[in-house]
């Protein structure tokens, strides 16, 4: 009896071994002409909407690049592939998954997650393993003050979000033969790293012009009401009101300024396009300025997608919803890799990293060129104004669709 069992055992284990060998060979072959990028994105949790935008952006880039024949590295064509995990919108999980992608799945190139908090947790891991990490969805300034060598961001950092609103206010003052010094600012920023970065940028530029800051409120993250701050705004009558508090802050300020009939000639906020203020509250949102990383009407072009508008069309056809900037910047991150692989002529992470560092390219998302800290300094932010219920680019002037309407007309 025991003899027979051992024989079956032997045959079975032989079979398993054979299967394993075959499977292994198949994997080895598959990775032979495939470059695998790793990504932890938020498919569940509070960033799930933006996480999906991010993933769709990556997927579209990979599909398009493969459709055009993939990437040629040292004369050999490779297809791209992305391995995804769900980071559940939590930084700890993102870091853990990064570790897993690199040490277990053997990924040598990382794409970014959505959100600075998550990237902050992932960057030390990619740094430890010396794995390039190109991201398009984390804008916190402090990510680029840590001396990270492998982290690159294609987007403008958060302190740039509303600098242009200040510049625009200064321009308007000059047009009306006034000294920018006389411009009075009121600001309300959520007490979180992103918005405080935005605040730093605004303060720096306001100082440059010598503008006076009358109100500088920090909204608690669980804010549900801005009545106290807005009452103050009505009392001191500033020329510009600047608000940053993600989608919630944008929706609240539009709604409550409308409701309380707060009349400020210029109002600016971040995240109003993703909060859909023009779509859901067209009357109240009229004249609001919105900061954005990207817009389909900009005249940027690249060899993969054509113009920004072509990209947006292709995206909408593929995923059945209009392309948000979160998707465009994710796509751009993959394009950076495609460009760097070709120039590096090698799949050695170290060489690819150096190639990324010397990137100087144009994409449908905008020009990309990294400074020594790894952030993209070539691309400007854009400012929309809600005009007639639609977002129209009004700054920077070079790409503006239409002129700024000033002062903003209060809806009756």
């Amino acid at each position, binding site marked *: 009896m025991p003899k027979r069992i051992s024989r079956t055992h032997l045959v079975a284990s032989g079979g398993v071994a054979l299967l394993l060998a075959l499977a292994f060979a198949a994997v080895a072959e598959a990775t032979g002409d495939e470059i695998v990028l790793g990504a932890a994105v938020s498919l*569940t*949790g*509070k*960033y*799930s*909407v*933006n996480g999906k935008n991010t993933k769709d952006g990556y997927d579209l880039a990979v599909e398009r690049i493969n459709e055009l024949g993939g990437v040629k590295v040292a004369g050999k064509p490779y297809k791209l592939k992305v391995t995804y995990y769900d980071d559940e919108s939590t930084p700890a999980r993102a870091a853990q998954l990064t570790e897993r992608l690199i040490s277990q799945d053997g990924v040598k190139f990382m794409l970014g997650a959505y959100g600075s908090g998550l990237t902050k947790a992932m960057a030390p891991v990619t740094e430890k393993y010396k794995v390039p990490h190109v991201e398009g969805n984390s804008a916190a300034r402090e990510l680029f003050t840590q001396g990270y060598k492998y982290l690159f961001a294609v987007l403008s950092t958060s302190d740039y979000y509303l600098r242009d609103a200040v510049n625009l206010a200064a321009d308007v003052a000059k047009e009306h033969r006034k000294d920018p010094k006389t411009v009075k600012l009121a600001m*309300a920023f959520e*007490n979180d790293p992103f918005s405080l970065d935005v605040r730093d940028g605004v303060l720096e530029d306001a100082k440059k012009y010598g503008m006076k800051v009358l109100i*500088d*409120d*920090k*909204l*608690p993250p*669980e*804010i*549900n*009401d*801005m*009545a*106290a*701050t807005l*009452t*103050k705004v*009505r*009392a*001191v009558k500033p020329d510009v009101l600047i608000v940053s508090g993600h*989608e*919630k802050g*944008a*929706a*609240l300020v539009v*709604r*409550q300024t409308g*409701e*309380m*009939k707060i009349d400020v000639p210029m109002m600016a906020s971040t995240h109003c396009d*993703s*909060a*859909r203020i023009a779509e*859901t*509250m067209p009357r109240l949102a009229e004249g609001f300025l919105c900061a954005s990383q990207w817009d389909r009407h900009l005249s940027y072009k690249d060899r993969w997608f054509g113009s920004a508008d072509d990209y947006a069309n292709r995206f909408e056809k593929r995923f059945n919803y209009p392309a948000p900037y979160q998707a465009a910047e994710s796509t751009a991150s993959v394009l950076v890799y495609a460009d760097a692989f070709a120039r590096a002529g090698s799949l050695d992470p170290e060489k690819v990293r150096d190639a990324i560092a010397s990137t100087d390219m144009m994409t449908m998302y905008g020009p990309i060129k990294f400074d020594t800290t790894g952030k993209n300094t070539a691309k400007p932010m854009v400012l929309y104004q809600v005009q007639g219920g639609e977002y129209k680019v009004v700054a920077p002037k070079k790409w503006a669709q239409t002129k700024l309407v000033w002062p903003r007309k209060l809806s009756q």
Partner: protein
Amino acid sequence: MENLRLLFDSPVLSVQLLIDGVLIGAIFALAAYGMALVWGVMGLINVAQGELVMLGGYAAFYLYRARIHPLFGIPLAAAAMFCFGWLLYRLVIFRIVEKDLFISILATFGLSILLQQLANTLFGADVRTAESGFGTLFLFGGAVTVAEIKLISFAAALVTGVFLIQFLRRSRMGQAIRATAQNARAARVMGVDTQRVYAWTFGLNAAICGASGALVAMTWVVHPYLGLPYTVRAFMIVIVAGLGNVTAVLATALGLGAAENFAGFIFGAEYQAAFVFGLLVAILVWRRFWLARERRYLQ
């Protein structure tokens, strides 16, 4: 100090702050009624209170999308939430009634996380608003504005308060609820179906929270994570006002709303919450001494 001077220079600002604060307080009052009810009758601290408010907000949002007038949307949201509360009781809450207070806190805390994540999955993380279609009133030549929807919130808080008092006093179920609150075992002996009473109580709580959530959606915004401030404030109001007194709950809530708004104005929004909790500590300390003094008189 700059802000304080501003307040003295134009007293009309104080009127604005007071009105806004009191009207905000009305929404807190609704959530607090429910918490006092559940706490008093079932001996349960419902940490998922804010999540019921959030779900009420989503109910109102979808009713608004279905083009139902908000005046009907508010009671419909409340009705939907009553059913939800009843169901929640039959599924989960009945297991933790009459158990240790700590267990109820833990279980409802878990429930709050579950409801948040479910809402996130079902409704998405986007920030939503429901338009009430109401306008704004101007007082003092336009120096003070009052959104009509906030007046409706205030009226709703009053009406609900009166309804709650009358319901508990006069209706058969109200009497059963009070009997169960006094002594559940005795009520059972007397033939009261306490399980049904508890289910009603929790359903009623969910309905009141649902109405408050509908008002939140029409006054501010709705998203899956808005619950916590409502839970915390309801908790605070109930601690200060006590469990058995609907009028005290309303008064405390309105006072809290006003105090919070003034604090936000004078100290800046970042100290608004800190001020509220400072106030809570101060009131509790003061009440302790006050009670001690009363006790001395009695001796």
